[in-house]
């Protein structure tokens, strides 16, 4: 892990903190590589049950580092698409394909690709007063790093269009009304609330979470018949796990299940 990204373990919960507060945690290639490596490693680490992604300072993440982009445009290195393919896409993919739940703890504003990052997570909680900004259009660019996908599917085409075309900020309070944010908390409650949720998830049936996440990722692109077939496949796998067998036994015996974790 580099100094652009901090990594801290609390029991089975890994917290990754984007640590470029002076740049409002803007994303540059080394930061994205560090995040991706951290998430991939957490996915493989049997000691880790859930991941929290947050930022240091007053912003969660301001998106692409425009100074970086600008210098490259000046150098006529204009293929921003390849930059996305090499850096942003693998990061979004790493979060979506991580078998552990990934919680975004929005300590401040998430803008542009920083919002994409938050939307790629499985759950978002935010400090009161923070904003979500689909900022790309403000600098003449289109939403990227998965934002067009996440916004249309999470909000529907109408609201997604409004946000993407205006670039107007959405308060996390309004975002909670729209279902984008699970909870809005006072600033000093953010990490305790995120950790509380993360620990609860880390203590649950882990293989089942991985199967649920896979199902949710694929369900967005399938029709009802395909989803029901997918569910049958996933359920076959889930029912075979020791955690499911224990939980079913515990239900019948009217006691709390003890998951292997």
């Amino acid at each position: 892990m580099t100094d652009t990204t901090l990594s801290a373990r609390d029991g089975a919960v890994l917290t990754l903190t984007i640590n470029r507060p002076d740049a409002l945690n803007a994303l540059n290639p080394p930061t994205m590589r560090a995040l991706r490596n951290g998430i991939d490693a957490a996915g493989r680490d049997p000691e880790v049950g859930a991941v929290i992604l947050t930022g240091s300072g007053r912003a969660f993440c301001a998106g692409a580092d425009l100074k970086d982009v600008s210098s490259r445009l000046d150098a006529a290195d204009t293929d921003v698409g390849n930059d996305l393919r090499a850096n942003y896409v693998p990061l979004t993919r790493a979060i979506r394909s991580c078998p552990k739940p990934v919680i975004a703890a929005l300590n401040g504003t998430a803008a542009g690709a920083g919002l994409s990052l938050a939307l790629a997570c499985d759950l978002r909680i935010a400090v009161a007063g923070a904003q979500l900004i689909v900022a790309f259009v403000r600098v003449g660019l289109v939403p990227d790093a998965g934002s067009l996908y996440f916004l249309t599917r999470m909000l529907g085409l109408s609201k997604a269009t409004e946000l993407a075309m205006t670039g107007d900020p959405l308060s996390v309070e309004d975002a909670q009304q729209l279902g984008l944010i699970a909870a809005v908390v006072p600033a000093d409650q953010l990490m305790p609330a995120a950790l509380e949720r993360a620990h609860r998830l880390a203590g649950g049936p882990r293989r089942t979470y991985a199967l649920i996440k896979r199902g949710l990722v694929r369900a967005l692109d399938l029709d009802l018949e395909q989803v029901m077939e997918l569910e049958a496949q996933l359920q076959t796998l889930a029912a075979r796990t020791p955690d499911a067998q224990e939980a079913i036994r515990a239900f019948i015996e009217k006691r709390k299940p003890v998951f292997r974790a």
Partner: protein
Amino acid sequence: MPFEFVLTEVRGPVGIVTINRPQVRNALNHQTIGELVEALETFDRDDAVRCMLLTGDDQAFAAGADISQMADAGAVEVLDDDNFARWARFKAIRKPVIAAVSGYALGGGCELALMCDLVVASETALFGQPEVKIGIIPGAGGTQRWTRSAGKVRAMEAVLIGEPVRAVDAERMGLINRVVAAGAQLDEALRLANLIAARPPLAVRLAKEAVNHAMEVGLDAGLDFERKLFYLLFATEDKREGMRAFLEKRPGRFSGR
């Protein structure tokens, strides 16, 4: 069947062959191809086995040929060795073979999957022919079978660029039968294998032969061949049993005669 690089198992009427070289992502050296073909041939001769299943592990179905075995080889050595004779025996297998693919199916691994009659893939599966990146081209049918399954432009993209396609894309382009949740590929392949195993074996065998014939000949010759096999099945006990069972609304009991 004591093999070094493949495992064999019989589950009911299904013979399972598992490529087992996890330390090299199931790279296909000559011995592995030889063993897996021999295992399939043995199942092919076994009357208790009615369908076969070929699989790898979660990380890789088979991640290509063993490059270390080819790096220093010249044209004459490769010609003399004639590894492809082993692959050719695969084509002569008469019972259906289903590939259950998870992870990498690259190069020879992809060609191996495409030689199977049905392909079930985990959503994690990647199919590709990366040979061009190391100065060669597919040698076990990749250029031919991609073209026949997915069409010319898809085949060109696969073999000219060498980047793999995801299972969902492979399914869409007709390269494979279906995509299932990661970890469910063996269950689904077994489900299909058991359906095939419940069908009359002679009809299954001739149906496979007829479809494969379509790849070889023009339409008229293919139709002619199909009709001959169709007539032939009217001479079987299973045809009589199958039709009687249908009329009596009960499942058929097939003997393979």
